[in-house]
């Protein structure tokens, strides 16, 4: 705020940038800040093929549930990443959402910059994000291993801000498209229609969930990670190297986040600042399912996605972003251990 600039209200980055501004997405005019819910994104199928007004309430609800399952699939993947890192380190990783952003952005960028085919670009996206995840662990989390909860929260928020800034410098502020994996022809499902990409999102969620189950039940690394989550000290006594397992969990969390970002990108486009809200929603999903519970993360994500779609569709689309957090607070107050959680959670 330079001299004399502060006097008159201005649009753009001017007003309100006076205090604690850094890290916030720049103040953008209404039309860009709040895209009409059905104009793009997950509700595109609803808008394009019969307005909800033409449908019966039941059909509408079914349509919202299908759309919600798509968003919910993404939330589930992000929540899975949260749970992985939380189990290994006890850290709530606020940078998880940036893995989602990185996955989508690297894929989009390597398609336009190097002309890679989609599948190869997606692999590059996952690989780059995984490396970033491991670096984040080694460079920022490990040196602060024994710090308090609040300090670790600030460190991961710092990492998230840093990654977002880096992305805006490398790829610019514009939205980037990723082509749909298999066309846009809508598929009718019991009276509602969804895009093939929605099926990709749900499929990716399912495959990732199964892959996680296989890793944690049937591989040595997975079992070692579980051992560390149950009792880090005892695991170390058994010869499991804790720091390596933590790196593994960051790598897996980053890869899962990247997958979520890549399958979501054709639906919503991708941009340097998509990570924060997705990350926070994924976090709500993780809490909803019971923090640190893998299956809970999947269930929590899907439930949250459906609730959000129903709330936005039937109650108010304006307050869509608040719904997840209202659900979160309700769950925390009524059943802090989450839907599937066993222990008593955070309450007295």
């Amino acid at each position, binding site marked *: *705020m*330079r*001299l004399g600039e*502060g*006097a008159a*209200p201005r*649009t753009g980055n001017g*007003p*309100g*940038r*006076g*205090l*604690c*501004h*850094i*890290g*916030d997405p720049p*103040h*953008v*005019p*209404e039309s860009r*800040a709040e895209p009409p819910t059905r104009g793009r994104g997950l509700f595109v199928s609803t808008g394009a093929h019969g307005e909800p007004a033409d449908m019966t309430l039941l059909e509408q609800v079914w349509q919202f549930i299908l759309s919600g399952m798509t968003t919910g699939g993404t939330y589930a993947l992000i929540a899975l990443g949260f749970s992985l890192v939380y189990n290994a380190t006890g850290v*709530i990783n606020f940078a998880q959402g940036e893995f989602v952003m990185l996955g989508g952005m690297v894929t989009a960028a390597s398609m336009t910059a190097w002309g890679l085919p989609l599948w190869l670009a997606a692999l590059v996206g996952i690989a780059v994000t995984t490396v970033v995840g491991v670096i984040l662990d080694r460079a*920022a989390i490990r*040196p*602060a291993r024994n*710090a308090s*909860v*609040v*300090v670790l*929260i*600030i*460190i991961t*928020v*710092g*990492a*998230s*801000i*840093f990654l*977002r*800034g*880096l992305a*805006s*410098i490398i790829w610019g502020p514009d939205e980037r498209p990723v082509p749909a994996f298999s066309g846009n022809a809508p598929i009718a499902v019991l009276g509602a229609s969804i895009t093939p990409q929605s099926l990709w999102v749900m499929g990716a969620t399912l495959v990732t969930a199964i892959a996680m189950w296989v890793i944690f039940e049937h591989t040595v690394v997975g079992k070692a990670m579980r051992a560390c989550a149950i009792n880090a000290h005892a695991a170390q006594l058994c010869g499991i190297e804790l720091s390596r397992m933590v790196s593994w969990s960051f790598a897996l969390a980053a890869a899962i986040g990247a997958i979520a970002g890549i399958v979501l990108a054709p639906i919503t486009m991708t941009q340097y600042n998509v990570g924060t809200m997705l990350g*926070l929603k994924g*976090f*709500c999903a993780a809490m909803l399912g019971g923090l640190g519970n893998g299956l809970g993360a999947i269930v929590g994500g899907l439930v949250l996605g459906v609730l959000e779609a129903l709330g936005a569709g039937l109650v108010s689309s304006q*307050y869509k972003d*608040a719904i997840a*957090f*209202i659900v*979160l*607070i309700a769950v*925390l*107050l009524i059943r*802090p251990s989450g839907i599937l959680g066993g222990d008593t*959670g*955070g*309450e*007295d």
Partner: protein
Amino acid sequence: MAARRRRAQKLQILGFFVLVALVPLAVHNRYYIHVLIFVGLNLILATGLNLLMGYAGQVSLGHAAFFGIGAYTSGILTATYGWNPWPAMVAALLATSAVAWLVGRPTLRLHGHYLAMATLGVGIIVSVVIRQTSSLTGGSSGLPGIPAMTLFGRELTTSMDVHYFYFVWAWVCLLTVVFANLVESRPGRALRALHDSELAAETLGVDTATFKVRAFVISAAYASIAGTLYAHSSMRFLSPTPFGFHTSIAMLVMVVLGGQGTLWGPVLGAIIITGIQEVLRPYTNWDIVVYGLLLMFMMIVMPGGVTRALASAWSAVTDRIARRRRGSGDE
């Protein structure tokens, strides 16, 4: 001992504010005065949060909500309904405290991550409401036309930033003194007992639930006052951006980086964070890269905060000097 410490503390506070009062005599650049006004506002925010975090031992990741409720209540009442800024300030204070009480009563039963998440949720819900109730708040396009603060019938206008500087810092002074007295009082000691061990405090007869909610409401009231002062500051325009998640985090950083549970920690924190933000402001995009890096770096290097890092560095230096003296004496 305690009495001596309190007297020393009083002198420190007095000295600090005399120093601040002299600043406009030396600094004539209005930009610096403007920045110092924001240091003052951040200091109020940080001091309030410090009471909750450093003394009552509770985390809040959503305190920008109270800052926002204070600012918008003041802004709407004065700009839209033509109220005088002073009753509007009182109304804002009451509204914020009421919301804080309603939110705090159920959520403060939670601990650790769960409390952090609940407060984070509250913060985001409030920022979504501010953004979406555009008939009242102006939504994303903002709320213009907030009148200047008045004092004894005189307007503290933009052209006289120095007056507003003194006005804001008078509030900072008042609220710091209130804070210092509060933490040394019986309720303050109860809060600190709560910070160390909730169970122990409970067994000693401290009504922990009530004290936690009180600390929460008071810290929200601090944020509300900062919000009112912000609404009437030189911009006199409100947009939803400064009342979101990242301001809550910035407040958290000021308290933790400065050193929670100390009188001067949040002061240092507010100065450092405001300073960093102002220095970085001209560098678009790079500002958030460097800010993010600095957050990580500072918290890794000084997880206990600057005040403690300085204190331990100081004692290391004095130790070494003492040892060297002793060493040379032996020879």
